[in-house]
């Protein structure tokens, strides 16, 4: 089962290297999603299924969708269609698709063999145990995280509103 870990690690490193060297933001996003999926598979192999699920749902799902929204908002105009055609022409997506295929094959192999390796032979940490710890000793941290999320919500709303006259948006006059 060590081979699965090292293969996923190699996929993650390669995809991350492609992220920081792309010139186009959409191409970088494709590679970053592959990198996050590889890290999620590593979490699964390490015996952390809840972290793997959260990595896929929140990182590769929600946060990347935010990036896609912003990139698309910055490119409004008649040339957008041609630009998207140039972004997603055949040949661009073969790299992320190949890396993703490696991950899919690896995931199927892990599920078929049914042998999830764990570092140092420890048992996997079940989501129930994580929940008990999260809402037990770390309850104060949960409250602080809710404060932080509320502050982020208010800050994003304040900064993101469209100011008239193009003036000082989000600045104290």
């Amino acid at each position: 089962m060590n081979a699965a870990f090292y293969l996923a690690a190699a996929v993650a490193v390669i995809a991350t290297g492609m992220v920081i060297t792309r010139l186009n933001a959409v191409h970088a996003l494709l590679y970053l999603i592959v990198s996050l999926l590889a890290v999620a598979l590593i979490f699964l192999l390490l015996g952390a299924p809840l972290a793997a699920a959260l990595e896929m749902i929140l990182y590769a799902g929600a946060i990347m969708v935010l990036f896609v929204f912003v990139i698309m908002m910055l490119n409004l105009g008649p040339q957008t269609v041609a630009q998207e055609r140039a972004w997603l022409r055949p040949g661009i997506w073969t790299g992320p698709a190949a890396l993703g295929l490696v991950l899919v094959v690896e995931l199927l192999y892990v599920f078929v063999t049914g042998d999830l390796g764990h570092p140092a032979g420890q048992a996997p940490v079940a989501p129930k145990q994580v929940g008990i710890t999260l809402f037990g000793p770390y309850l104060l941290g949960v409250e602080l995280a809710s404060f932080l999320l509320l502050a982020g919500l208010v800050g994003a709303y304040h900064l993101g509103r469209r100011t008239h006259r193009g003036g000082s948006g989000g600045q104290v006059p």
Partner: protein
Amino acid sequence: MTTSVPMTHGLILAGVLFAMGLVGVLVRRNVIFILLCLEIMLNAAGLAFVVAGSRWGQADGQVMFIFILAMTAAEVSVGLALVLQLHHHFKTLDADAASRMRG
């Protein structure tokens, strides 16, 4: 059961990913890319927590990963709102365009 993955290799992977994200932050000048590389760095930190938590079979690593996730969500929402403001004011996404302070 086969021999398991040593914790050192997981931590090395986290370190490599963090270093790549740091290089990206330092090299790229596009704000979108800087935010993406920040994501890579936070993800690497979460990976280190999960690896260490898995090594000792404790749930604390995954709890810290959840906290990092919440912090990342807040950071990304505020950061992307700032990107929209930057594009609105300067008509560019170059970070160096906003390097001068007023006053």
